[in-house]
């Protein structure tokens, strides 16, 4: 969302311009316009129907669900006004899940940004083998999250997992534990896995942005005797800032609706230690049959994310405008 998205529909190229150029064919231009309108409507109809039935309609339904108490069976559920919202505000489990969400968003956004940027800078400066590096650093992102969860579960396994083995190997045996079973570490263990995939995403995007960094500016800075850190801060970062903010927005917004990886690795446990709003919404709706309550939670996730989306979008637009002016 946000970012490069639509702004305004692209003005139609043909039509009027053609009429001006060829005044003699004004009649056929009207025919053309009619034919274009007909084809246009025909081409968008299937798209519109599918979107209306499977997206707009359930969305409207969601808006209705939050004001009733639907249990999944009752055809005419009782109207309860804002009770779902007031209950949600007083539910300690919601706040616990929200807290986990916040941790997830903060750590799960900053860590991949740093790691992904570092990877991208490294790969950017070498030529040989860059195809292999790109492949290796990007591939975690294309994998299905379930598979990722399964394998990382083994890495975190208490007795024979590679993490504990590695810790023992370097003499940190006292830190070994069942990473996913321990309420103190479970959330961070799952986060570690998420960072692995999200860093891959940041990497590929930042790398493509680095390709557009002005080479002349880099050379000039080098001639001025700057060191590589100065060039990073004063030359590279400002130029990739809009893209960097875009990645930040996406990772951050993804943090609000995180579900798959937590659901697979811990299911929200142990004892709710890794529950986030998404997993709590799911279990409310589909395990406790509190359909309306779950829907309300899911809606809250979206609503919470909106201000961040708007803010980041504004910041990013301002930056890219500045970039153009400079």
């Amino acid at each position, binding site marked *: 969302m946000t*970012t*490069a998205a*639509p702004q305004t529909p692209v003005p139609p*190229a*043909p039509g009027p311009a053609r009429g001006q150029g060829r005044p003699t064919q004004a009649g056929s231009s009207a025919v*053309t316009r009619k*034919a*274009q309108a007909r*084809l*246009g*409507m025909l*081409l*968008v109809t299937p*798209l*519109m129907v*599918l*979107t*209306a*039935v*499977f*997206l*707009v309609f*359930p969305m409207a*339904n*969601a808006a209705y669900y939050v004001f009733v108490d639907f249990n999944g069976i009752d055809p005419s559920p009782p109207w309860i006004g804002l009770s779902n919202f007031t209950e949600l505000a007083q539910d300690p489990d919601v706040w616990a899940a929200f807290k986990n969400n916040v941790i997830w968003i903060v750590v799960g956004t900053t860590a991949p940004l740093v790691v992904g940027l570092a990877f991208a800078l490294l790969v950017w*400066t*070498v030529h*040989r083998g860059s195809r*292999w*590096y*790109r*492949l*290796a650093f*990007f*591939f*975690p992102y*294309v*994998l*299905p999250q*379930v*598979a990722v*969860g399964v394998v990382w*579960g*083994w890495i975190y396994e208490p007795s024979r997992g*590679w993490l504990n083995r590695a810790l023992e190997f370097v003499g940190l045996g006292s830190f070994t534990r069942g990473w996913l079973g321990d309420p103190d570490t479970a959330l961070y263990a799952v986060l570690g896995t998420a960072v*692995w995939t999200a860093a*891959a995403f940041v990497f590929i*995007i930042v790398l493509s942005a680095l390709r557009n960094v002005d080479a002349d500016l880099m050379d000039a800075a080098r001639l001025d005797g700057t060191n590589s850190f100065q060039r990073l801060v004063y030359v590279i970062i400002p130029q990739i800032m809009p893209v960097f903010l875009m990645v930040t927005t*996406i990772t951050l*917004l993804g943090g609000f609706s995180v*579900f*798959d990886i937590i659901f697979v690795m811990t299911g929200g446990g142990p004892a709710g230690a890794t529950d986030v709003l*998404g997993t709590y*919404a799911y279990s409310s709706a589909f395990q406790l049959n509190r*359909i309306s309550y779950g*829907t309300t939670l*899911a809606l809250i*996730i979206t609503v919470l*994310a909106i201000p961040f*989306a708007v803010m980041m979008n504004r910041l990013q637009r301002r930056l890219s405008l500045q970039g153009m002016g400079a």
Partner: protein
Amino acid sequence: MKYQKARLDTRGKLRLTGKHFLLIALSIVMVFPLILTISTALKTPSDVKLNPFGLFSSFSWENITTAWTVGSFGNYFLNSFLLTVPSTLLVVVLSTMGGYAFARLPFPGRGIAFYVVVVGLLVPFFTYMIPLYFQLRGMGLLDSLLGVNLVLASTGLSFGTFFMRAFFSDLPAELDQAARVDGASEWQIFLRVMLPLVTSGIGALSVFTFLTNWNNFLVPLLYIPSGEYRPLTTGLYLFLGGRSIDIGPLAAGTLITILPVIVLFVAMQKQVTQGFLSGAVKG
């Protein structure tokens, strides 16, 4: 002068070697989970019991065949295709049509129609997934190939339309004018003139959508409750439920799940990257 330059070069070379060393080490760390999966999947069952995560300590296809037959991963594999191929085709065809219309054809109601597409792009699946379950149940589309394909398609349509619209917008206006002068109909301009020029976009969208739908977990989890058409992702999750014991077949099942993804990724890296780069816009 010359000496100095030579010295700088050796320093630069050393530095480059150091970088490559670091990069290789890091890429091994990144790829390690994949290595672990392959290693465990290809062990003998007895070796899995003793030493499940030791790397490449034995070799056998047994876990793969067990997962494929006893573990139903053969069925899941087929189901994944049945859920991914039609939905991907649907997204690509309808998005190309819609993208063309929004980019080049003025038609009444275009503003509103475009607004609907924007909404589809902005609203996360999460927001409406629960009501959609009951809607599908009411329509008799729960647990059906048709229903899940339509849902998967609808989640990708908005992005696809945007994606294809950008490709069509980039084509010069003179093209269709010239074709029109030659007496081509609007249909012919779309199919014969414009369509061949956006094949790279169609390729990237196809690969991207295929991967997204193949990897999708939440949609089959929610809308295939009975499991008749269960794909690899939820099949793997189900298999994981019986955890601890069957690590060998579980690793094999994981490998079966990700193998098509890896093959597609390595073979079509450019399209995948292009798709995901613009997919980023979706958020």
